[in-house]
């Protein structure tokens, strides 16, 4: 195998990418199975509870505000209950250990990530430059960074329950990239020959990775908040509630909405700092390349909009009446704008940032 042949390297990169997608798909299934198992574990405990109606109130071990007697019951049967993470408040209504499917999911994700990394690096070598100079490559590197951020965060906090979301998102984006955005290796046009391509685009992708996780956490936070409200109002009867219809019973095994909100906030503020830097680096680059640092080009407009939405999110957290669900919605809107900026603005809007390569 001749590793100096760009065409060959590029085809190996493609093989690696398709393999990565296949393994991500398997990981996605494993994570989904884990969620299903959590749901049935919750079901089992509740069923047990129906039998021993009005058992003595649970010991406070796993109780948290907003959980009923029923869900706070320490379940002694399978699966083994333990703290979700040393770093995270142990405030799940029903702490749930790491099922085998969860472990499999994480292992597969790491494997797929390694393939994904190899694909990206080979593409870079094939093109003899950083692998993020057109839509296909942005998508490949961007999703790699989303996944990298996820795996690094896993070392610090147990967010494994987001595996379904993250592998699902990355899979969809990679699929679109490979099928819709694929372009052959091409050299950098003069407009992109700049150190700022390396810095600006990389940091933007990193910020996107953070926002993606923040988005997932905020979404789960909203669902969790709804569950907690049902529980508080006593409408979380084992059957009948909406969440039951949607088979979202696993929520009882996830951290409380307050904890999720804090996690989302911590991740989003890192994303926000990176995004602020992206915006500034972008205008420094624009000054060099186009002779003006800011010109309200469509891409610049959307970068600005995203920045303002997340500034709003941070303020919302400090505004009475906006903490909790409302601020979560802002994070969700913020990430939707990020995806819009990447997917729609690049392809369909006219502007100077015409580097999709399509």
């Amino acid at each position, binding site marked *: 195998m001749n590793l100096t042949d760009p065409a060959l390297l590029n085809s190996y990169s493609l093989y690696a990418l398709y393999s990565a997608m296949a393994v991500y798909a398997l990981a996605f299934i494993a994570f989904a199975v884990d969620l299903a198992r959590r749901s049935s574990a919750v079901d089992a405990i509740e069923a047990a509870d129906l039998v021993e109606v009005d058992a003595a109130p649970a010991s406070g071990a796993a109780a948290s505000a907003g959980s009923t007697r029923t869900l706070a019951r320490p379940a002694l049967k399978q699966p083994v209950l333990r703290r979700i993470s040393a770093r995270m408040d142990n405030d799940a209504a029903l702490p749930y250990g790491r099922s085998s499917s969860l472990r499999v999911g994480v292992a597969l994700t790491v494997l797929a990530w390694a393939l994904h990394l190899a694909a990206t690096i080979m593409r870079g070598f094939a093109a003899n430059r950083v692998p993020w100079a057109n839509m296909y490559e942005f998508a490949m590197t961007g999703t790699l960074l989303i996944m990298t951020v996820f795996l690094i965060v896993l070392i610090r906090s147990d967010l494994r329950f987001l595996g379904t979301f993250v592998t699902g998102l990355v899979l969809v984006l990679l699929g679109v990239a490979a099928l819709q955005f694929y372009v052959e290796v091409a050299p950098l046009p003069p407009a992109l020959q700049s150190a700022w391509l390396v810095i600006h685009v990389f940091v933007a992708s990193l910020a996107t990775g953070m926002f993606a996780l923040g988005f997932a956490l905020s979404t789960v936070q909203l669902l969790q908040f709804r569950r907690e409200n049902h529980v508080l109002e006593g409408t979380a009867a084992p059957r009948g509630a909406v969440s039951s219809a949607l088979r979202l019973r696993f929520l009882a095994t996830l951290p409380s909405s307050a904890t999720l909100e804090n996690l989302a906030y911590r991740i989003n503020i890192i994303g926000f*700092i990176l995004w602020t830097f992206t915006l500034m680096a972008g205008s420094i680059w624009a000054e*060099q390349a186009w002779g003006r640092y800011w010109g309200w080009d469509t891409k610049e407009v959307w970068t600005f909009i995203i920045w303002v939405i997340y500034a709003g999110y941070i303020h919302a957290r400090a505004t009475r009446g906006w903490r909790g669900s409302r601020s979560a919605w802002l994070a969700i809107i913020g990430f939707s704008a990020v995806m819009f900026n990447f997917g729609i603005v690049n392809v369909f809007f006219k502007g100077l940032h015409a580097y999709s390569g399509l």
Partner: protein
Amino acid sequence: MQPKLGITGWLRWFWRQLTSMRTALFLLLMLAIAAIPGSLVPQRTSDPNGVTQYFIDHPDLAPVLDTVQAFDVYSSAWFSAIYLLLFISLIGCVIPRTKHHFQALRAKPPTTPARLARLSGFTTRDAPAHTDAATAITHARTLLKSSGYRVARFDAASESSVSAERGYLRETGNLLFHAALVGVLITVGFGGGYGFSGQRVLVEGQTFVNTLLAYDSFNPGRFFDDATLDPYTLNLDDFAVSYEQQNLQAYGQPIDFTADVTVTPKGGAADPGVVKVNAPLRTNGTNIYLLGNGYAPTITVTAPDGTVVFSDSVPFLPQDANLTSLGIVKVPDGLAEQLGMIGFFYPTQDKMASGANFSSYPDLEYPLLTLNVYTGDLGLDDGVPTSVYALTTDTLTQQTGGATGVDSIELKPGASAELPNGLGTVSFVDNDPAASAAGDFSQSVSRFASFDIHHDPTQVWLISFSALVLFGLFTGLLVPRRRVWVKASTRPDGSVHLEYAGLARGDDPALEAAVTAMADRHLKLLKTHQPVVATPESPRRDDLGLHRESD
């Protein structure tokens, strides 16, 4: 009963509303929404041709949109109103916070709460034997101080404690961030007014003097004085291009554009320089950007008597990626009739099945110039300014090409042709006839570069404020602000019980770990100092002040 509000009362109320967090949030969200239309509708500043096209495509809608300033969103009254209100709100919010923060910086940490057990990270330890409460607290105080905490010590009969606070930098960063944003806005708002931007096309070998008249177009800022232009000269020595030839997938894609120039300050020595697409030349207080390039065929028109009536390198504007280029030649004087020509230049000429010419590669492989000749009134004498890049053909008679039945003039470099009606001769001058004769046309035609020349004295300010924004953001969001307490109480049996707890002020994910680490370090410190017979240090006076911070 509602107290009556006078004018000042109302103003006060309005000001409080405007500077409230809720209003700030509302205005931020409004700003995000208001920015959207500018990405959906073309904007005059960034895409003037798009606006013109929009008026053609949507003749009914466009005027309506125009009345609500939809083509000038970012300078519109409504957009400006939102961000100006936002920044007034910001200033009104930051000033009192700054005052408050200065007070907080001078205040002492508050008294130790009676019950620490309810606070974050609460943990207890047993002091090593022979350590008394006062000594334990002395060590805790030292430890906290060396970790960057501001401390206050409290001693009572059987109980000593130290109260500590750190992370004032968090609020400092936050205030700095907001203040620097105001700086950015002011710089952007006024900065443009002190500079100028101008455009100039230069053909290889041509020189430009930085004076008002030498610019093809010139946009001064509101406060810019033309007299301050520094009349240096800029000569385009050479313009080099390279196009991809190895990779067939990207064949002909530009790889590099390099303009070699010479800059000569007034009365100074000539200085060579380079301008590239991502690398402007910063010289004599101006920035010179390379924004475009193309071919400038040298065309000569000679009257029948042999007088040269026109000779110039004419910049042809590129029309596609392979640089099929369009250029205009106007010869108002010296011939029997006024003469206009619309030329197409093909750096590598090829023919479609239909017989039409096109360029198949952007570099000079097989150059061809075609000319359609018009005669009549060029309209140059009416005093109305006309573009050198356009020919109004209404008042002209077409002589070659199109429906005339006469073939367009086609010229290779170095070739000449008779003009129709015996008007004279037109030639396409070859810059390097020897090489062309050998089949190498690469130097046969001159190139032009279009430069943007800008002067913006406020860029330095802008980048400084941006750096402060980023720095403020880092510290304002990531520095933890926290209080920590250590309390030592003596049990009846003489042993000493130690309690530790913390309180987050703002988001502080590491608080509990920090309190535990503090407890462990403290205990270790006490153990290493154990043999020393403890003599209680007399508490310093300033530590005894029972100041309570108001917040």
